[in-house]
């Protein structure tokens, strides 16, 4: 049996599979379906300080090989999460990454402080990339200074690993990975969804209430792999890669491109048992290639440059 564990800074995950934020509720919803402690980690739904009701429905629409969502970060808030969900997640043995949101630097710091003070949180993922809300989220993640400032503010209040989640809705995502690294982030996760829209031509109305939303699913995967690859060239901190992963080969693409772990979201909607297939497929790959440790696959892309140099092209 190959060693599937991976390290995200000081945090060791038993395997590289993480349920992506916003795609797995608070984790407890899936506990009766399977043992969520078998996942590398669970990233919770995004949490502000206060409860939020999010956008009115319709909130999603299916697209070719993908889906568009604008949920609007409905959530119970950090304090209720710590009181109502975290004890259950701890009892279930889940490795919990809390997705932290804010509309101000102070709010990011305060939410981070609340979850850091609680028992049972393994890491903080900073949501600086939600495309669906007016304030916070992408407002920070689309500015290098904003990215730096959020990481810096949270760094001051927590010793937990900090993982800013980056938006792909920028010209050069690797510059944002570097800004996060320089501000003291322990890792980065990418990509969040691509800002997109779908129109009903009969009614000439948008298909979701927020007009625009975030595109996810297999449709975005090749772009996400490219962005992970670019970031892996730019930073030394680990990368949590995501975007349209639906089977083991997809996950391996991200790992080979340089991701240390992968997150899965949309595929979990279509198949909540996708995790078993992913883990079995990755194990099978390691066995076939006689690789003892998954960590030895990370960042092993062969771009053929050595070969090209040898043949003198």
């Amino acid at each position, binding site marked *: 049996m190959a060693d599937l564990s991976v390290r995200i800074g000081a945090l060791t995950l038993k395997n590289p599979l993480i349920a992506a934020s*916003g*795609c*797995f*509720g608070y984790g*407890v*919803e*899936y*506990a*009766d*379906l399977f043992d969520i402690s078998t996942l590398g980690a669970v990233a919770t*739904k995004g949490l502000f300080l206060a409860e939020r*009701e*999010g956008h*009115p*429905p*319709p*909130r*999603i*629409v*299916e697209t*070719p*090989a*993908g*889906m568009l*969502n604008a*949920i609007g970060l*409905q959530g119970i808030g950090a304090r209720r999460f710590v009181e109502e969900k975290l004890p259950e997640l701890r009892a279930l043995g889940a490795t919990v990454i809390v997705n932290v949101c804010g509309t101000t630097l102070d709010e990011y710091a305060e939410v981070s402080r609340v979850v850091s003070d609680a028992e049972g949180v393994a890491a903080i993922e900073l949501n600086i990339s939600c495309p669906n809300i007016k304030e916070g989220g992408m407002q920070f993640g689309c500015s290098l200074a904003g990215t730096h400032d959020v990481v810096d503010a949270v760094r001051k209040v927590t010793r937990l690993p900090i993982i800013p989640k980056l938006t792909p809705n920028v010209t050069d995502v690797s510059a944002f990975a570097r800004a996060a690294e320089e501000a003291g982030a322990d890792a980065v996760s990418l990509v969040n969804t691509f800002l997109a829209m779908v129109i009903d031509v009969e009614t000439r109305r948008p298909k979701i209430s927020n007009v625009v939303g975030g595109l996810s*699913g*297999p*449709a975005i995967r090749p772009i996400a792999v490219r962005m992970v690859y670019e970031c892996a060239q730019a930073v030394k901190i680990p990368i949590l890669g995501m975007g349209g992963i*639906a089977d083991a080969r997809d996950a391996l693409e991200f790992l080979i491109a340089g991701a240390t772990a992968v997150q899965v979201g*949309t595929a*979990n*909607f*279509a*198949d*909540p*048992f996708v995790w078993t297939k992913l883990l079995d497929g990755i194990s099978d790959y390691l066995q076939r290639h006689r690789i003892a440790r998954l960590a030895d696959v990370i960042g092993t892309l062969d771009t053929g440059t050595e070969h090209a140099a040898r043949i003198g092209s």
Partner: protein
Amino acid sequence: MTGFTIAYTADVATDVAARVITNRVLSAHYNVLALSAPEIAAAAAPGQFVMIKAGRGCDPLLRRPFSIFELLRDDAGEPAGISILNKRIGASTGLIYEARPGHRVDCLGPLGRPFTVVEPPTAGWMVAGGVGLAPFAEVAAALRRRGVATVLFYGARSGAELFYLDFFRNLGVELVLSTEDGSIGERGRIVAPLERRLAAQPPGSSVMVYACGPEGMLAATAKTAARHGRPCQVSVERIMGCGLGGCYSCVVPMRTDEGGFHHVRSCLAGPVLPADRILWD
């Protein structure tokens, strides 16, 4: 507090690669697909739903929710499968319309909160619009098993889209029908005869109203039931990404005790919800 605690009802849900037993075409738009899924049939309660992935691969990508229509039993009387009542409107429902016996579809369930089945002397009045008939075959069967006086108010565009009438008659269900074109039953909306019947009901009697159908019909049924002081449970249909509480797409705005509202996930708290708590506008 919101008045709604979410129970995790997925504890008995099973994902079955269900074989299509039969595909009974009812009209150019409607069919009944019978699926081999004993685990789901054994656990299902009236009003629960399944999430079905109609095709392979990425398009369509997500599953679609379907009310469980009939619970199927084998010759020995053991749970053998379920059927769904399908109306062809898009890619997934188109694939389900065209499915052939022997095909397999991924079917996850049973999911969600069922209808509360009343006991005599309370009467059970079911209000169905179009494909909203789907949950009522099993609700009717459960009510009649208990000896409940049961009425089905059933509306459709035309008489050609009123299905399974003999099924309900044979259970001893009284039928009140309406069609938009007047081809069978009363011309117009089904809420009109419901309203008259509620108005004529003696004050001391007890009635539970069950409804499933288009949003306008549900809202009108909810208002009518409330006006006459009758409890009403509605099965809502929302665009649903996962059916398990993960995606937060299927929410329904519901009144809280403090006078505000809360977006409730209809996959977990529903699909059957108390009509008087829903904000219909």
